[in-house]
């Protein structure tokens, strides 16, 4: 992997993919807080599952980014 390619992948993992996740998690927080109206039990469970899995994705992205950063790049 060249340095440019490594930078591109690192930027995607550290920045580009985190932005949509920020929106997903933020909208979940708004729904879960009840500020947009009460949720049914089923809706609440759904929002919690989306939140939990989006959190997992954030952790996976961080782990992947660290892995990419530790790879040696071709000169």
């Amino acid at each position, binding site marked *: 992997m060249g340095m440019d390619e490594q930078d591109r992948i690192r*930027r995607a993992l*550290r*920045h*580009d993919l*985190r*932005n*949509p*996740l*920020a*929106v997903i*998690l*933020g*909208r979940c*927080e*708004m729904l879960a*807080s009840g*500020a*947009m109206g009460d949720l049914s039990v089923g809706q609440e469970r759904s929002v919690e599952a989306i939140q939990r899995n*989006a959190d997992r994705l*954030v952790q996976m992205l961080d782990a992947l980014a660290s892995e990419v950063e530790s790879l040696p790049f071709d000169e």
Partner: protein
Amino acid sequence: MARRKKTYNGPIYYTTYQVAKYLGVSLPTVVNWVNSGLLSAHRTPGGHRRIAHNDVIAFARQNSYPIAAELRQAGGGHKRVLIVDDETDFSDMVRDYLGLKADFEVEVADSGFQAGFTVARFRPDVILMDLMMPDMDGFEVTRMLRKDADTRHIPIIACTAYRDPEVERRISAEKFDGFVEKPLKLNVLLELIQSQLGLSVS
């Protein structure tokens, strides 16, 4: 249908006497601050000094004077928050959240260039500034605002999804008033904005 009472949301000005009372100092002290240029003021046609609410708040914050509750309330109207971010889904979400949770007036600028124009027109009380934007990034916009005597006192909260040691070094060098990392907890962001505005945190 109930008629909505019209309220004045423009700038509020104080006399030197009022500023002295709010900051707990003597009248000559305030006059001295104004005359030496430490506190911005303008003259009325009758020659009296008038000081803008935002300038009093900025001066108090800079010089560690406690902001009296009476002064905070006198600001009246809605506090103005500007969100600068090229990710429109993100800025829409923050605007919606602040609209639901607080009585703020919120505007969005989706580029660094637009931010400059919007600040001049909207006169925000606080700015949430995305750092990574194409063309003119958040660091550049912040430097520009800090250079301008009219805007340098506006608190700016840095916001980015991209955090590494170099970004952290630049955030510290630019002396932002706060920092949030995406993804973020919206309630934490609200608390940060409230504290920058001198409001009690909900």
